[in-house]
């Protein structure tokens, strides 16, 4: 089953065409690593998938359902965009943890705000908040940071901050935790669909099912990771990989 399908995605900032027609699809459970030179459009692609940027052209399908069509985008309300965003979790390069909240509060904040919209929130407030707290504890222990639950981001190392950011992104879909962690640790996983932007070619080689090489706003090469990394067909991919091996 196709989990994610991206069709002819285009995005430009002023006169700069950052994405010039990106097409790809991912099966459920596949892990995709995106590699490529800086400024090639990797991050913009991820940002488009999270609707942090609005694509100028193209469609995004999730689980066989069209969730975005540039031609109809103006019809989407803010609430619909918010709902679409929740189909994706995103861990930022800079983590972007909220500095005034502890590790645990970073995880629970969005859950609590969403719980408030539940019709039974007023009646079952205590139970719901207790559940959220338990979930946050579970997430923290899975990323190995339960004892840092009450620490503020500035007290955590970069790696610890990243793990909190991962836990936070997963908080809205906790079943995925184990799978994502396997990926982060460099183990293969099977169930969750993931996109990783990375500069570590070996990481991509071992963890990803597919590798995408993006350069100058287009997919220069896309295929099974071993094939793309060990036997690149595109000249630019070859040049890029050579540079990394040296």
């Amino acid at each position, binding site marked *: 089953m196709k989990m994610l399908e991206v069709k002819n995605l285009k995005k430009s900032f002023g006169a700069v065409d950052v994405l010039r027609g990106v097409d790809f699809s991912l099966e459920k459970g596949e892990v995709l690593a995106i590699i490529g030179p800086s400024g090639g459009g990797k991050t913009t692609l991820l940002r488009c998938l999270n609707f942090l940027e609005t694509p100028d052209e193209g469609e995004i399908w999730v689980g066989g359902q069209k969730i975005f069509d540039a031609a109809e985008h103006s019809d989407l309300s803010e609430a619909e965009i918010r709902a679409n965003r*929740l189909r994706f979790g995103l861990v930022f390069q800079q983590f972007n943890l909220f500095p005034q909240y502890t590790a645990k509060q970073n995880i629970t*904040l969005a859950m609590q*705000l969403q719980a408030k919209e539940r019709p039974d929130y007023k009646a079952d407030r205590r139970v719901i908040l207790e559940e959220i707290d338990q979930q946050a504890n579970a997430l923290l222990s899975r990323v190995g940071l339960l004892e840092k639950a009450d620490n503020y981001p500035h007290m955590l190392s970069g790696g610890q901050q990243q793990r909190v950011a991962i836990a*936070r992104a997963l908080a809205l879909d906790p079943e995925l935790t184990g799978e994502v962690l396997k990926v982060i640790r460099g183990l293969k996983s099977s169930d969750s669909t993931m996109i990783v932007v990375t500069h570590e070619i070996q990481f991509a080689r071992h963890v990803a099912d597919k590798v995408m090489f993006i350069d100058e706003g287009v997919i220069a090469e896309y295929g099974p990771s071993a094939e793309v990394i060990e036997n690149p067909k595109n000249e630019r991919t070859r040049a890029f990989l050579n540079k990394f091996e040296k």
Partner: protein
Amino acid sequence: MSLFLSVTGRLLEGFGLTCWIFLITLVCSIPLGLIITFGSMSKFKPLRWLMRTFVWIIRGTPLLLQVIIVFYGPGLMFGMNGVGRMPAVLVAFIINYSAYFSEIFRGGIESIPKGQYEAGQVLGMTKRQIFFKVVLLQVVKRIVTPMGNEIITLVKDTSLARIIAVKEIIMVAQEYISAKALIWPLFYSGAFYLVFCGVLTILLNFAERKLSYFKV
């Protein structure tokens, strides 16, 4: 000795008025400043223009002049009955300080990294939630120091009220010069400001310490 006590009493009366001008200006100009901030950051260009022009005019002219204009202006221009002295002072001060505050707020809000907004967005938060739950406290932390500066300046700016004969502490002290040829009450009035600003400094330091549990 009795002269010292009576001067102290008179100065205290004036100082009471000083405190009122200070307090009311502070309490009213913070929310008004925030509204001006939102206007000057609005995506709607005419509003943004209007607010930035307003700030330019208010910051570009002396507060002294603004007090005079608010007090005499309505009568001279429209033949209206003038406003009272104290209300005129308050209106001028509130407008003036809200313009300054609005720029401090704007700087604070714009200094928050875009990533903080985006992190809220990908977590499905609304704009409102992002502002109140994520951004606001970080802004407060960033502006405590410049706000402290402005608030302490306000304490001393209240002395401008004497230009339209509002009897704040400096005006009371000055009357001793003309009426009794005594200059020391004027020097003495400085001690009142000094103590007041000392207390404010302690409060501001307390606020800074309270917010030191996180880093932005």
